[in-house]
């Protein structure tokens, strides 16, 4: 193991009123790797990312970031340690200009409003939203709002980028743009990607983790996952059809 383990979960579990959403999940994500999390609806993917990011507390288990136990840390403190998070349901500052949305992502770490605005312009240029910088974010199309949210993540230059179903509801060209953005991430950035679109998963993921009914049933490189009979039974067999 040459690569530094950036994120590690040990026995991460969560139940909601008797329904087990996640059951003892052990995963490790080295710096620079893209790990795709797949599984049928309700298999616990979003619950898992919410526990990693600190949005919900696990019942049992631990989350380690750069070897440090962050299980007790609130979400904002984990973000400050180098995480960025995009919501499954698009969440931007709808009444604020596009520019201010990105500026808010930068302003926490970048000092000086001049530098914040320069960084904002660079980020908006990179994702192709610079021409719309002064519109309220809520006036953007759905696809552009998703792109804006990804831009807010990019602006933070995260060590770990968590994306919860980023391509949901995007058109094919928009999905291609998203894949290009992910390709252009710095090599050291680790990505935890919850994704239903198998083309995107196969294109981006270094490894794939498969969840079913709250349990981790397989982890490995895309080829092995594709060939795994348990995975085919649980997920791919139906999704590929």
């Amino acid at each position, binding site marked *: 193991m040459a690569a530094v383990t950036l994120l590690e979960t040990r026995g991460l579990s969560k139940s909601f009123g008797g329904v087990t959403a996640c059951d003892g999940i052990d995963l490790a994500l080295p710096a620079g790797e893209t790990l795709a999390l797949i599984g049928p609806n309700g298999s616990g993917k979003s619950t898992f990312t919410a526990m990693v*990011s600190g*949005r919900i507390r696990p019942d049992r288990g631990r989350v380690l970031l750069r070897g440090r136990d962050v299980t007790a840390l*609130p*979400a*904002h*403190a984990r*973000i*400050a340690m180098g995480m960025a*998070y995009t*919501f499954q349901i698009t*969440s*931007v*500052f*709808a*009444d*604020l200009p596009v520019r*201010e949305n990105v*500026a*808010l*992502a930068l*302003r*926490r*770490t970048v000092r000086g409003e001049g530098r914040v605005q320069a960084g904002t312009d660079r980020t908006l240029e990179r994702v192709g939203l610079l021409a719309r910088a002064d519109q309220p974010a809520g006036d953007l199309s759905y696809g552009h709002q998703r792109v804006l949210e990804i831009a*807010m993540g990019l602006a*933070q230059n995260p060590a770990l980028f968590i994306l919860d179903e980023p391509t949901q509801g995007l058109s094919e060209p928009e999905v291609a743009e998203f894949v290009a953005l992910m390709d252009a991430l710095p090599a050291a950035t680790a990505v935890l990607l919850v994704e239903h679109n198998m083309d995107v998963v196969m294109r981006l993921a270094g490894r794939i983790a498969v969840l079913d009914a709250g349990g981790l049933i397989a982890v490995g490189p895309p080829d092995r996952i594709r060939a795994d009979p348990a995975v085919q039974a649980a997920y791919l067999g139906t999704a590929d059809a």
Partner: protein
Amino acid sequence: MIDARRSLLLHGGIVACLALLAATLPAYHAGNLTRILVLAVYAMGYNLLFGYTGLLSLGHALFFAAGMYGFGLSAALGGLSAGAALLAGVAAAALVAGLTGALALRTRDVAFMIVTLMFAQAGYLTILYFGTWTRGDEGFVLPAAARRLAGFDLRGDGARLVAALTLFSACFLATAALTGSRLGRTLIAIRENEDRARMLGYDTARLKLVAVVLSGTLSGLAGAAYAMLFGYVGASFATVQYSILPLLWVLLGGAGTTVGPLIGVALVFYLIDWSSRVTDAYMLVAGVALIGLTLFAPQGVAGLIRRKAAPWLP
């Protein structure tokens, strides 16, 4: 950057206009202006929490009264000079706001409104309970010594207006600077989408507490100044009416705008002043006007100006 220069021109211009008004208005209106300016400081304090951070408190009378009683009791019973009592009033308000915020911010939305309302009610009852010192509903008049600041006798109309204008201008320019600052923009982000702000790494719980303390302290400063300038401290300023009034002023003037509080206070003040001369049912006139404004300009006067003519309005 152009917006920053516009903002400086706007706020500087308003202060200059107010100074001109203060110098030229007839005595009756000059007296009104004094009261409006002090109450506008209260409204600006309220606006910081409601308009900019998006937290609707129904208990700001607690902070206004904490400043007023902090000033009045330390001057009348403790024998402090006006300057020292002013500091005591502000400190009392900051302390009360810190404690109230730490507890009330465990709730949100309607629960937050109810909890702040209850805290203010508890504050009011506390004032009545310690009637031996506070003189309860009857209140008390401040000694002359508590109304001399930096060599000026604030019992005179002219000095009082100058003091009110100075206080207002300082707070007005300070809140304008705050809304353009990192902190101000982050508070707006919390108002717009708290979950998103937290997931950008902002400690929203701490920032909301900061907002409550800033807002409560500014409200308390207004309460202390009101006592100093008008020489009276009474429990009526701690009643629920004084929690509702700033909400009304800010809603009418334009929540989340720097000029809204001043516009709202002046509007309500003259509306009641004018309608009470026309009819005994002046509250009805005020009520109808309020309904009309909320129907046709739900973002308040300044909000309407921002939407129609000046989108850069801070």
